[in-house]
């Protein structure tokens, strides 16, 4: 078993509304798994089912090879999108309470909290009330509480919302470090640039159905269009462009580069290799720029959602 979490044909309806329709995902151990989808696609419902907040109508969920059971809440750390803490409770007291609810002993929770508070340099907040902290500060506390009990599975729903770029980076590094220490991360977001940065695997949920999943690189390969960004310099550019257009499919290109006369997106067919294209271009003009257009997660997201 290499998958930490397996959801098998999970369905859930609320009245007449089907929130999830036979969704299956497999989250490999030690990966960062991006759970993507537009608003209202059913991501939160799936996450709540994994957290045993909601019970699925059909389908099974397994954690580490066992069907989900109440004891598993110790193994999961969940940072919901709708964040909040008891406003009038003191930071330290509240963190201890939440840690104990996750099954930690008080003394263990205290020493772990000290480690994290020192690490994030927030030790002097211990006796402050949440309402005295800023929103970002409160989110830091919530992050610590989520990861404190060293869960096998971490679920972050939009973890960076509300953070400034510096703190968002800090949290991103912590997430990567937790992954390196062996945790598996499910990461739900609309922010595709963080998906590119962090995720190894993704699943895309749209209108209650899973429409795409796999390794991010595999998916990108699957979505490659064999298109190359080309920047050329030549004395008689018009004839060069005409010759290229004659042989290949050419699209207008807008990439930033230093003084290239000719900027083109050139699409080649299956039988042509990139080397063929490059040597053809080199014979006509000076090649300054030659890059394969790799579809971004954003492109894939928009394209897939639109096609469905």
């Amino acid at each position: 078993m290499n998958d930490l979490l397996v959801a098998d044909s999970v369905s859930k309806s609320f009245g007449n509304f089907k929130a999830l329709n036979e969704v299956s995902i497999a989250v490999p151990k030690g990966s960062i798994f991006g759970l993507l989808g537009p608003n209202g696609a059913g991501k939160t419902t799936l996450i709540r089912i994994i957290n045993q907040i909601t019970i699925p109508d059909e389908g099974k969920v397994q954690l580490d090879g066992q069907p989900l059971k109440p004891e598993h809440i110790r193994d999961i750390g969940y940072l919901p999108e709708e964040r909040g803490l008891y406003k009038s409770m003191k930071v330290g007291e509240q963190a201890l309470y939440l840690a104990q609810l996750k099954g930690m002993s008080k003394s263990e929770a205290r020493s772990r909290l000290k480690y994290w508070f020192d690490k994030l340099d927030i030790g002097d907040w211990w006796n402050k009330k949440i309402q005295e902290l800023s929103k970002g500060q409160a989110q830091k506390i919530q992050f610590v509480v989520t990861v404190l009990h060293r869960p096998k599975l971490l679920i972050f729903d939009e973890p960076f919302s509300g953070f400034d770029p510096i703190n968002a980076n800090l949290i991103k590094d912590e997430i990567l470090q937790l992954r390196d220490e062996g945790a598996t991360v499910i990461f739900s977001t609309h922010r595709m640039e963080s998906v590119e940065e962090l995720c190894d695997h993704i699943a895309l949920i749209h209108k209650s159905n899973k429409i795409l999943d796999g390794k991010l690189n595999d998916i990108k390969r699957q979505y490659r269009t064999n298109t190359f960004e080309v920047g050329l310099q030549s004395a008689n550019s018009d004839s060069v462009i005409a010759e290229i257009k004659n042989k290949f499919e050419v699209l207008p290109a807008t990439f930033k580069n230093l003084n290239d006369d000719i900027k083109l997106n050139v699409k080649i067919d299956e039988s042509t290799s990139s080397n063929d294209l490059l040597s053809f271009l080199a014979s006509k003009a000076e090649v300054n720029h030659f890059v394969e257009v790799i579809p971004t997660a954003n492109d894939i997201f928009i394209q897939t959602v639109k096609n469905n």
Partner: protein
Amino acid sequence: MNHLPLIIKREYLTKVRNKSFIIMTFLSPLIMIALIAVVAYLSQLNNDKKRTITVLDESGYLKDVFQNTENTTYNNLEDFSLEEAVALVKKTEGYGLLYVEKVDSLNEVSDKIKFYSEETPSLSVISGIEGRIERRLKEMKLQKDGVSMAMIRNAETKINIVQENYEGKTSSKEGNIVKLIFGGLAGYLLFMFIIIYGNMIMRSVIEEKTSRIIEVIISSVKPVQLMLGKIIGTSLAGITQFAIWVVLGGVLMVVVGLILDIDLLAMQTQQLEVIQQSLETSGINKEVGEAIVAFQNLPILNLVIAFIFFFIGGYLLYSSLYAAIGAAVDNETDTQQFMLPILMPLILAVYVGVFTVIEDPHGTVSTVFSFIPLTSPVVMLMRIPFGVPPWQQILSLLLLIGTFMFAVWFAAKIYRVGILMYGKKPTYKELFKWLKY
């Protein structure tokens, strides 16, 4: 995993440390005692007020009717005209003038009596005067028909029926009053407790919703556990507050009494006497004696056990409903539409308790309402001092426990769905749908 003790502890500590809770705990008895002291002081002032009533009796029938009492002096005028008398009363700032017109016969007197005063006279003064005149006129009319005064005195009878049930237990009206006080106190205490702390539970559920911590919490504990923890923790805080109120209230009562020199206890016995007098009983010592006997005859053990069970059962039943309401809405203003169905049976219970149980503790209405679960805790607690067969108590309690379990199931369902629902105010129809999620 059982997190219940942990949740109870947090709920309790949060409530007890809350500033407004602390202020209320210590301020409420102060305010209450201050109010009682002011009322007591004022009514004492009122009682001490001396009044002078001037009497101008032109008929001559009502001589010697009015004897001076502690607070009222009667001033009989003779050979004054009405105008002169009024002027005199005005000048001397007397309480008022009682005027009886000149009449031809005894039968006409009753229609010819007037009372003149600056302000509307107090009801008790007027009814006191009326009583005296009625008695005198009745005596005079009887005498005119040839009945002697001795015969009239002889005919006056006081009745005090001795009540005894088939097992030979006697009871008395005094005893009934004691029972009423005990039953009423128990029922009223439960009523207050439900309203105050039920609301507190509801608010704390809403707070968890609005602060959005709820999702973190229920990813660690079952909603039912959280709900029960809340109810129990808040109740314990409530019991603490109540205990402090009782102790503090008692101490303050004594202190204030000493300072203001008001015998509050005497005032209470005075009130008791008023009730008893209204029931036309006689002999104060006998009354007190009967009251003590009745107190000793109260089914104390039954009362205590029933109080504990019905109190807990009733309170938990209502508080789980309060928790469900808290879960169903986003903010306190939205709770109104759901409060009515909770408050209706509660208020109905108190009304039935106050009006019907006093009238007839074992009548159909009282009996039926002491079985209906939403009203049974209050009504049954009021009935028990009058002696309720054990099978009725047990049946009612079983019904209550059954309903309580259903209510917890129902509330937990609403709670589980509701705490994650934001934005819209649910209708009853939607709540019903939630049961099936």
